[in-house]
């Protein structure tokens, strides 16, 4: 309850911040639509030259684009702006005030900034996923759909956990402003199924910076490529990574000595 009240307070605050620049919101949404057009054109070009991309059909690729955009929205609406705020607050010492609040610091660091107009992107992404699944047709079963939904969430949790660990490293290595660049750079690999990538790249985006776990893997569940055990394994990894991340965060906060104090 308290968490929800806090979330809605933070939401209102960020909404007020955003409403000061209403024209920007319109421009951002228009540009966003334009890039979506480009992405669909990309898929169109691919499928005007072939019928399947490494065994994936056009509907599955559109659904994958939807999932990718969900992950991307999560990053752009919460993770990147909060990273910028966090890095600045470590540098100038204002993180002390965040830590002094009687609320879980990991929660505050995650949700204090929200890019409101990105909510629009959630709608677009959902439409893409639904349309994509529709185009795929009869092959989708109810258990596969459930597996897809659960794995999308747990994949995002895994990426989130990686982010927590990366920014927590700042507590040990103070000069670490590049903490999320690797995540940002590799995010684009989520647009296409990782199964078409060369082995070295697939290993990187599966184990090192697990973008594929949040994008390709849920779609594989939807296609029925994964066994029940594999689905459970990925869900377990999601839960475990969250536990590890919150441990690392707590240890980091204990280690932190403040920049100005």
């Amino acid at each position, binding site marked *: 309850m308290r968490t929800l009240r806090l979330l809605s307070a933070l939401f209102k605050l960020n909404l007020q911040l955003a409403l000061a620049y209403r024209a*920007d919101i319109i*421009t951002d949404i228009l*540009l966003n639509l334009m*890039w979506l057009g*480009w992405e669909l054109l990309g898929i169109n*070009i*691919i499928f005007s030259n072939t019928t399947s991309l490494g065994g994936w059909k056009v509907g599955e690729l559109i659904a994958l684009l939807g999932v990718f955009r969900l992950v991307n929205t999560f990053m752009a609406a919460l993770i990147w702006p909060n990273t910028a705020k966090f890095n600045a607050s470590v540098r100038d010492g204002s993180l002390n005030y965040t830590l002094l609040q009687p609320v879980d610091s990991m929660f505050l660091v995650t949700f204090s900034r929200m890019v409101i107009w990105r909510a629009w992107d959630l709608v677009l992404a959902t439409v893409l996923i639904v349309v994509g699944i529709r185009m795929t047709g009869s092959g989708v079963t109810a258990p596969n759909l459930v597996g897809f939904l659960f794995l999308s969430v747990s994949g995002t949790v895994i990426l989130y956990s990686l982010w927590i660990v990366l920014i927590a490293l700042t507590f040990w290595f103070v000069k670490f402003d590049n903490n999320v660049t690797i995540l940002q*750079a590799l995010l684009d*690999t989520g647009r296409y199924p990782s199964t*078409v990538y060369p082995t070295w790249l697939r290993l990187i985006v599966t184990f090192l910076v697990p973008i594929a776990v949040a994008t390709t893997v849920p779609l594989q569940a939807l296609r029925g490529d994964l066994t029940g055990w594999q689905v459970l394994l990925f869900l377990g990894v999601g839960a475990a990574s969250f536990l590890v991340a919150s441990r690392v965060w707590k240890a980091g906060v204990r280690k932190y000595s403040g920049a100005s104090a």
Partner: protein
Amino acid sequence: MLQIYKRFWQVNWAEHWQYRANLMMYVLYGLVSPVVYLAVWITIANSQGSVNGLTANDFVTYYLTMLVIDQIIADISQYYLADKIQDGTLSSDLLRPIHPVLTQTLIATTAQKALSFVALAPVWMILVLLFRPDFGAVTLASFLLTLPAVLLGAAIAFLLGVSVTCLAFWTTRVNAIIDLYDALIVLFSGQFVPLQLMPPAIQVVARYLPFQLFRYAPIETLLNHLSPADLARNYVLSAVWLALALFIFTRIWRAGVRRFSAVGA
């Protein structure tokens, strides 16, 4: 004059060297998207032999060449100029007896590109080892023909890029305009896919726009895929667009600076 350029170069080089880790990240960042598209097209080409006449090796050589060409030609002046116009620090540059854009911005971007090149070279070697391209089609003649094409492309990209950035004199939302301009480049330059795979309507438009001179034309010149007629056509197009870009830039710059001083920033 040369002395001025030399001094600016030394200062800029030293400044960029300070942030070499960031530069390395920036270079790696630029690699991801081409490598993803390369992987996609190799998969398709391998599964059906070729795509529209393009083999897997054609895609490998195309995208690997693009990584280098892109590094030389892509305009990055917005990162140097847009803020200066918006926060008014351009004022002090305007007081100097040299052109702020044609010296400072030009040298700053060139220095960044040169240093990025140092970062790109080893990574590019690794990609060559991983993808094993066959650059057998490249000849000394095609290489020599590519040099002027790259220089012309870089000049046009720079002049048009700073012209777009100069719209910051009139609007505070110049970043949205630059985003739009970049989207046009992605669509019409052949950065996405080799232009011959684009829908026919886009190909027709692209033939007259300057953007293909930024990627497709120099890449295909180097890889020896163009007929003498096409080569000649590209050079003529480059000359026309260079003149146009120079004209556009001088007009926008003059009008902008006049407006800038009128505001009194």
